[in-house]
């Protein structure tokens, strides 16, 4: 544990160094950039709230993907599952249920159910028709985003308006508000912590989780252990879909307060990167999500304060991910770790 944390720490430093190098090549001061990013994402309570809210959604997407990665699956359909969660949330918010004081609870639950339905579809395609989950997922994403556009411009459009700009705002009761007067996203964070603990237990303490991992590790061997791979693929997709759906419903009722096309915000795809980086480590997911969220939220400052192009945060992010993967693939970090440990000499 200590070792892997240290190793990830080394990787982070190297990746940040690579980012600095690229920034340097682009003739921008890395320090200024980092300063602005930090200030823009943790400068005051409002910004911290925003960063945490986005980090929560990203982390949820990452969690969802860790489940499917554990089962050896590429859940590309996560974006669609988030979209469906948002559709579920909007569906509830537009009914009489959306006026109830506990509407957010129903919204979250329905978001989860909607997302898991779509996850189930991926699993169904894979198991029944042998469609690889990457292609199934891509298709499902298209279907989901098409459906949202249809809903926003069709049945759920604003009165007298036909715009893909979004539906009407949710009734105030359906909003997931911040803590007290502030925007501090206490409820999303509670949900994320709950799911974190649930997953942690699932993957490390339950037979279900262990079997899930076993399915992903070696299907042939799983067969010898009498583990029904198909069943666990379905479980994995349902879990991942539900978490993705919850992330989507948080996007809808906590950030946008309405349904807009592309409400998943690309977090699903980012989640894939996050899970890719984090391996199966839930804790790393949280850290990386925070880093990404602060780049996204703070990134607005680069445009506002430094007048940099609006695509700049994404450059930083891509370089970070790229550097991370190169470092991991080349095992430079492991070598450095061994070097450091040998120097200190007090580790096994």
């Amino acid at each position: 544990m200590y070792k892997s944390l240290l190793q990830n720490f080394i990787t982070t430093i190297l990746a940040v160094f690579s980012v600095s190098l690229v920034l340097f090549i682009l003739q921008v001061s890395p320090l200024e950039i980092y300063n602005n990013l930090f200030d823009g994402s943790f400068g005051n309570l409002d910004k911290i709230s925003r960063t945490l809210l986005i980090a929560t959604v990203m982390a949820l997407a990452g969690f969802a993907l860790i489940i499917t990665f554990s089962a050896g699956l590429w859940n590309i359909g996560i974006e669609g599952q988030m979209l469906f969660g948002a559709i579920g949330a909007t569906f509830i918010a537009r009914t009489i249920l959306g006026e109830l004081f506990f509407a957010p609870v129903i919204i979250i639950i329905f978001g989860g159910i909607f997302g898991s339905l779509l996850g189930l579809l991926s699993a169904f395609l894979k198991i029944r028709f042998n469609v690889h989950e990457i292609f199934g997922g891509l298709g499902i994403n298209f279907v989901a985003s098409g459906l949202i556009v249809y809903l926003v411009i069709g049945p759920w459009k604003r009165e007298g308006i036909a715009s893909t700009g979004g539906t009407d705002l949710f009734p105030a009761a359906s909003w997931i508000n911040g803590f007290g007067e502030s925007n501090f996203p206490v409820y999303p964070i509670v949900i994320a912590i709950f799911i974190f603990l649930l997953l942690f237990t699932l993957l490390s303490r339950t037979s279900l989780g262990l079997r899930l991992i076993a399915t992903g590790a070696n299907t042939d061997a799983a067969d010898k252990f009498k583990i029904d791979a198909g069943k666990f693929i379905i479980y994995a997709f349902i879990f991942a879909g539900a978490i993705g759906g919850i992330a989507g419903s948080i996007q809808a009722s906590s950030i946008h307060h309405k349904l807009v096309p592309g409400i998943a915000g690309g977090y699903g795809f980012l989640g894939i990167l996050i899970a890719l980086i984090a391996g199966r480590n839930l804790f790393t997911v949280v850290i990386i999500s925070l880093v990404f969220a602060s780049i996204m939220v703070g990134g607005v400052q680069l445009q506002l304060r430094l007048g940099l192009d609006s695509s700049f945060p994404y450059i930083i992010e891509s370089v970070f991910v790229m550097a991370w993967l190169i470092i991991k693939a080349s095992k430079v970090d492991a070598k450095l770790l061994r070097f450091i440990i040998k120097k200190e000499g007090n580790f096994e």
Partner: protein
Amino acid sequence: MNKAFVFPYFVCLSIPICYKNVNLNFYFLIKLNNSLFGAIIFIIDKFSIFIEFFEILNFSLFAEKYIGGKMLQDIKFKFILGLLVSSAMILAVACSSDTPEPTPAPAPTAEPTAEPTAEPTAEPKTIEKFGMILVGPRDDKGWSQAHFEGGEAIEKAMGAEMIVADFINPADSPNTTVAQVAADMIDQGAELIFATSDDMKDGILEAAAAHPEIPMIWSSGDSAFADGKGYKPELENLGNIMGQMEFGKYMAGCAAASESKSGNIGFLGPLINDETRRLTNAAYIGARDCWVDKGNSITDLNFEVIWIGFWFHIPGVTLDPTTVVNDFYDSGVDVVISHIDTPEALTVTDQRAADGEDVLVVGYDYENSCDVAPSVCIGVPYFNWGPSYVEAAENVANDTFSAEWTWVAPKLENGVTLEDSMVGFKSGDAMSSETSERVSKFASELDGIASIFTGPINYQDGTVMSEDGSTPSLYDIWYTSQLLEGMTGDSGGN
């Protein structure tokens, strides 16, 4: 993950950087990336040429298969080095072309201009900074650029510094809301905020409520329209500015019909709301008047409206304007009137004309948008936000700002736009002198915005908009609920 897939992923990840020039946005690039990634996996799976190359990536396999094992370390090192160097090169190449862009962009230019203007006019009150929230890119040759130049006018007039945030819409910046951007700008010292799209309604209302001390302008909105449906009297810091583009659209419609031989006119509409309906209607009335003036029968005029779904093209979400315009021409339309924020219609028309077709186009929003395709551009109804925006900024500086709803009439003289008019019509190279005369003739006959809608005018469903000879109220014009009789297209009713 199979090591062999890591490399293509690097390549894919660098694509957003390569595309940066083209003003594509990351959200779709991520999508693109992932489909590319999928495609690359597919290619590896399918095509032989890659096989050996990617096997090399799998070091251990490579070592076992091809080398005794001694060379392994050496090769690994060289390979990693190669990877690093090549990715660095990709980055360098992709981004080097952009380097001049970001560095001069910060607005030091504001400082020197501030000095001379400040000195001679014995310290007029001024504002230091203001925020400009754009829905699209600042150089879209359309709506957003017109606003951006309006902001530049304030910079010039008062020496204030403009803080710009562009691409603020849910598709391009799903993580950024208008309220957040406004808060950031205020944080930075902005004393006035412009939210320049109808789409920013929810965000700017939230921001105005959250920062009651900061004056804000929601362009094209109705939050300060005392008789309006969306009146928010509690938001005393939020004003609205809009130009009476109905004049411009009337002239645009007139010019289009005047140039059209077939009488088939295509109207490339954005989304459907009150504003777009009334402007489209104005264009139709202009087209009708001038078509009949040419001696044609009104029944021969075919005015078709197609809405793409948003102010500009969002892949996968809206219709593709390029396709729509092409479809128009394929179906016999010979003049297209663009109403969207971006100039795709001009580009397509230029291409079709280059292929020998007799097609023409009317632009929108930005005074110089005809530059995109001068030879086929009949003209462009445009906004000149500068004067109104400067006025608003001066009001803020002098503490005389109040939340007003201003619907600014154009300044026309004999049907020709004056320079400081909020709304205007600029002729393009493709306009014939006959059309030019006809447009100014009809424009000079107009007497106020209501006169455009002088009856008899019926709505699409047959109900009356204005009786014979009468004119509708401002309210009825602003909140136009349907397209007009004689037009083809969706009114967006529920």
